[in-house]
């Protein structure tokens, strides 16, 4: 991986080790960064490394063809970048941004997710109407499930018995039984469903419905829609604030883009922030002070100050930024 000369090379000699330590102390050689955000430039095939304190892009790594989504491994020691057009998973160190390894022959991974019980690794192939289920440890393919059309985002129930997939072009949500590794059911939802997340009560699934600008709330056990909550044009993705109650919803319009804050107790939108550029994937700081969002069509990562509710800074990155991640993020519920 190209590292712009930022990282010290490993060496076995104690002299060099001491010298390196001194240089580190002197601040001349940055090592693991205190706060590092990783943003995926899906059209460039690169990863932008951003200092979360100074908001400066401090490095750029070559990733692969079409890196869209990323997530931490269950042990938090790696961030996995799914490279759909490269048929690869690329592992990065979340603290340094250094590449750790590549796993090849993972066919067209778009969205990825580990089941909560750590048993399965699920990857959707948006382009090819298919969901692949791998053994999470060995990454060997266990099932390949047709999912017409356009399987996109993934959610799980708390026990890891089901994976729920939005089917963007057939306007449906599909449930896959992770015990039988077969399709369990498919239910219709609003036009162009995208992001999907399980609410903290493990009963309600929340789905971003782009075509209607709403979040559709589904009782997944009863397999029926309970309500539709208007957010804004092109409601796309969901992300937890980390307090077990509130969720951000990115409304992926370019000039009128926004992020809504949804209260899952009252099922109402309680705040909305203007975020231009087509906000897409999000990440929240553990202290709850900042929300980061990739501006998919604006070539930027937007940082929203959650105290002032205003756009704090707009960081130029590469083309079509999609996934974003940093350590020190808020809890995922």
């Amino acid at each position, binding site marked *: 991986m190209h590292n712009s000369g930022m990282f010290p090379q490993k060496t076995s000699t104690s002299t060099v080790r001491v010298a390196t330590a001194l240089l580190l102390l002197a601040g001349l050689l940055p090592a693991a960064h205190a706060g590092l955000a990783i943003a995926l430039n899906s059209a460039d095939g690169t990863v932008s490394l951003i200092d979360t304190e100074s908001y400066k892009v401090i490095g750029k790594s070559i990733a692969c063809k079409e890196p869209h989504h990323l997530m931490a491994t269950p042990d938090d020691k790696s961030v996995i970048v799914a490279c759909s057009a490269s048929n690869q998973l690329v592992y990065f160190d979340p603290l340094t941004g250094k590449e750790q390894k590549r796993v090849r022959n993972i066919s067209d991974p778009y969205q990825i997710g580990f089941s909560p019980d750590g048993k399965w690794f699920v990857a959707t192939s948006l382009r090819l109407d298919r969901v692949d289920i791998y053994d999470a440890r060995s990454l060997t393919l266990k099932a390949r499930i047709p999912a017409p059309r356009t399987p996109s985002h993934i959610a799980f129930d708390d026990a890891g018995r089901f994976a729920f997939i939005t089917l963007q072009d057939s306007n449906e949500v599909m449930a896959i039984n992770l015990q039988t590794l077969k399709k369990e059911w498919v239910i219709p939802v609003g036009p162009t469903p995208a992001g999907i997340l399980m609410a903290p009560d493990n009963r309600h699934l929340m789905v971003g419905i782009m075509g209607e600008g709403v979040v559709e709330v589904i009782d997944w056990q009863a397999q029926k829609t309970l309500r539709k909550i208007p957010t804004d044009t092109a409601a796309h993705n969901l992300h937890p604030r980390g307090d077990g109650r509130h969720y951000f919803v990115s409304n992926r319009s*370019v000039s009128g883009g926004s992020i809504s804050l949804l209260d899952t107790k009252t099922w109402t939108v309680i705040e909305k922030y203007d975020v231009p550029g087509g906000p897409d994937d999000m990440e929240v700081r553990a202290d709850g002070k900042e929300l980061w969002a990739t501006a998919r069509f604006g070539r930027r990562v937007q940082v929203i100050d959650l105290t002032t509710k205003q756009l704090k800074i707009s960081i*130029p990155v590469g083309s079509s930024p999609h996934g974003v991640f940093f350590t020190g993020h808020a809890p995922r519920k």
Partner: protein
Amino acid sequence: MIQEFLDTFVLVQGWLLDKVVQPSLLALGLGSLVEPAFDGIEFFLFGVIQLAVAYVLLRPLEAWRPVEHWPDRRAVRVDVLYTFLDRLGIVPLAVFAILSPFVLGLDGWLRFHDIIPPQIEDAFPSLEMHPLAAFFVYLVAIDFFEYWRHRLSHTLRWWWALHAIHHSQRQMSLWTDSRNHLLDDLIGGAWFALVALLIGVPPGHFIGLLVAVRIVENLSHVNARISFGRIGEQLLVSPRYHRWHHAIECPPGERFRYGCNFAILFPIWDRLFGTQYLAATLPPTGITTPELADPVHADHFWRQQADGITGLVGVIRKRKAPG
């Protein structure tokens, strides 16, 4: 400066997406096409820039050192129409819409049977870390396949019936590159899609590759006395080099029976495969097929399209005829 250009570009691109494209797609229930549509708008905007740059840079060359003077430029006008349809994405969009279900179907079928289409990086993993080198390798690979596509379009009689439309222009200019029969465009699109599947063209490189090819192709058709010299003409296709490809009379010799200088970007392919012809002269361009040489057809888009179909049907009928 670059950031300002990008910001302005993205602003226009975003505005078009927001105000024109996304509302229509969402209304039609085609929301998942929003992301490809954003790329499509980029393609369109690049086309606009390219048209402007080609006109600003190449038209003065044609005025300054023309190979031929044309008192009547009516025949050029139809090539301008072809160019706008092509460069602004109308023809490519139609080709994409027709082909993508088949290509995705093939890709999906292969993967469902555990066949992951190969990529150049599988053989040379170090290219993954060197995007510029990878870009050049893909450019060379695509040009190799384009050489053979082009050569076959001259060799196979049914294909030539369509490709002859491109060659029927006697007033060859910077606009002539896009003058193609629509079926020829469709076949070219299918060829490219299969090549992309075969070698794994990175989606992020796609527009860059296309822009590189188009710039050279605009230049190579220009009506101007320009050559790149003896060495230069072995490195990159020049207007003089390509003019011989469009010559009414092929150079003498059996190896030039179907034409010469088929290369799109790099003349090395002609040299390697025995189809290179170098000369200092600048021949007149066009073909002698009577219907296609008819001046009535010279400035008529639909008549040319009909001529291509007529020619194609004629070839198929002859093949079926007994004896």
